[in-house]
């Protein structure tokens, strides 16, 4: 079962939720940190990293001996990463999405693929829990290829928890694709609701089953509850504003270990998600 923990707004508690769910589950469990621009799940799970692999995207290099400056590649590049001046093709690797279109269209076979490093995927474990994270290279511009590499590394497991990046743009879409369920974490503030609405539009457009978790539920007001009721969205869990949770977080500890009284709430959340996924599977086309 693949569950993504996402949010519109950043800093609402995605990682807090993701690492605690991952630490709680039973069987073969994977925690995958897809927030590759600033992965931080490792701070709480303290995994032993055993494998580190560089990830690159294939960018073109031009063989000047074969290139006839026909400019077909320049016309084909929808990312504006190529130019042809003075019968010479210039490649701007930072803009390249690695789609391979230019290489496919070149009639002379003058373009070859060359890996341009964008980051690394690290694998390890915390006891029984399998840990994977992606970390982008400083200066790299595009995270989706690295997120895809993280996801491709995840072995089929009983429970796969994907810690998504914030927002609703390409990195989030890349993470959410093929998920069985999406948990949207928010907070009861105007910013929290505004960004939740956008996130809800996104997951609805993608046709993914989802529910909402309200973090620091007793700050702010009841706007998230009202919104979820009006939109008929499952409100899965409300985590109160508790100084001890903040302290646990600041020490890099897990709530389910440091504050056992919250363990049941996380277990209930996991149950609700599992039930919801099974319901979805039981009703074809829903």
């Amino acid at each position: 079962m693949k569950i993504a923990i996402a949010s519109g707004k950043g800093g609402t508690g995605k990682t807090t939720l993701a690492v605690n769910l991952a630490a709680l589950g039973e069987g073969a469990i994977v925690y995958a940190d897809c927030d590759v621009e600033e992965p931080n799940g490792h701070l709480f799970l303290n995994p032993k990293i055993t494998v580190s692999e560089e990830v690159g995207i294939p960018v073109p290099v031009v063989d000047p001996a074969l290139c006839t400056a026909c400019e077909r590649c320049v016309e084909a590049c929808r990312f504006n990463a190529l130019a042809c001046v003075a019968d010479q093709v210039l490649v701007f690797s930072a803009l390249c999405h690695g789609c391979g279109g230019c290489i496919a269209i070149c009639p002379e076979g003058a373009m070859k693929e060359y890996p341009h490093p964008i980051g690394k995927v690290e694998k390890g474990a915390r006891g029984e829990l399998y840990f994977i994270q992606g970390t982008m290279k400083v200066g790299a511009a595009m995270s989706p290829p690295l997120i895809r590499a993280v996801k491709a590394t995840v072995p089929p497991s009983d429970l796969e928890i994907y810690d998504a990046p914030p927002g609703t743009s390409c990195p989030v879409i890349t993470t959410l694709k093929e998920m069985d369920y999406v948990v949207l974490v928010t907070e009861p503030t105007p910013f929290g609701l505004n960004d939740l609405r956008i996130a809800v539009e996104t997951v609805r457009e993608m046709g993914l089953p989802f529910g909402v978790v309200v973090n620091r539920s007793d700050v702010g007001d009841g706007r998230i509850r009202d919104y979820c009721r009006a939109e008929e969205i499952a409100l899965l869990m409300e985590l109160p504003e508790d100084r001890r949770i903040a302290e646990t977080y600041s020490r890099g500890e897990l709530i389910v270990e440091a504050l056992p009284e919250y363990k049941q709430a996380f277990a209930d959340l996991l149950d609700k998600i599992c039930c919801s996924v099974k319901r979805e599977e039981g009703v074809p086309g829903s």
Partner: protein
Amino acid sequence: MKIAFTSSGKTLEDALCPRFGRADRFLVYDLETSEFSLVENAQNLNAAQGAGIQAAQLVVNAGAKVLVTGHCGPKAFSVLKAGGVRVFHGENMSIADALEAWRNQSLVELHAADVDGHWV
């Protein structure tokens, strides 16, 4: 020789546009015939990325050997340089004034990008 100016308007009296990659269009002035043509940049104006590179490609393809604009980033500059286009800085003036200033050699030539690139 042809000189390209970034422009928001369609005449010599219109103001020189300070933006390069996302300028509305280029006014390409031919010193030999004293006539000009307009090269639209609408496609790059709306591009998600790489507007400067493709704008530079348009300027090179138009046959200009000089570009007068407000600012130029590193990727656009490298395309212009490869295409043998010299870049001069102009701001707060009409295209006619910029042309005159270029003739008087009072415009400053850029030998490198004068603003940071996007994305990297």
